[in-house]
């Protein structure tokens, strides 16, 4: 498993943990203070979500450090895979952004209250699709025929 795959796997695991913890947090908060109050706090939560996206991306870069500096760890095939995954990620980001805008902005326009929600959702979708596309292109389990 190479550096790019490790980064993608780290991203997906980190997002799974964040989503599960986030769902538990929201459920607990809704049980304690009521769903209406939680909904009002949603933009604040989504700002944290944006920060979490950045944190996951930065930490995955640091975590998947080079293990053997003398060996090539990123070559032309990895570059092609990364570029394709990036295209998929950008498409997902734009798609989710437009869909959420359409969903959240009725005819009178988008309320600034929802902007962090929009950006957070788009960033998360882009990151998830990017990571998934990397793992899919490398093959089942990412081992690509290695024994």
């Amino acid at each position: 498993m190479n550096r790019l795959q490790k980064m993608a796997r780290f991203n997906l695991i980190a997002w799974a943990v964040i989503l599960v913890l986030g769902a538990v947090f929201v459920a607990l908060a809704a049980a304690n203070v009521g769903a209406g109050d939680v909904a009002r706090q949603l933009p604040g939560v989504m700002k944290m979500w944006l920060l979490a996206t950045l944190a996951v991306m930065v930490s995955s870069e640091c975590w998947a450090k080079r293990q053997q500096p003398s060996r090539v760890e990123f070559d032309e095939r990895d570059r092609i895979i990364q570029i394709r995954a990036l295209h998929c990620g950008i498409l997902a980001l734009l798609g989710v952004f437009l869909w959420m805008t359409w969903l959240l902005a009725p005819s009178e326009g988008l309320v600034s209250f929802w902007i962090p929600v929009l950006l957070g959702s788009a960033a998360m979708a882009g990151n998830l699709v990017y990571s998934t596309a990397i793992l899919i292109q490398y093959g089942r389990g990412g081992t690509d025929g290695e024994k």
Partner: protein
Amino acid sequence: MAKSEIQNRIRRLRFDHGEMTQQQLADKARVTRQTIIAIEAGKYAPSLPLAFRIAAAFGLPLEEVFQYTANGDAPPDD
């Protein structure tokens, strides 16, 4: 996945060259072992510079390592 139109004899040549490992070939061609695995399996068609580097690692001309087949059929192995 469909077989590539570019066939190769890398696996055979590795064994003919003192059972060279995939990692040794990868180091010589300046790519990752996964890329060598993908090329050997016909899952990835290398760029022209990489194809030349792989051929140079075996000390052979390009056409003795890689062959083009229009319909993706395997070339006759000698």
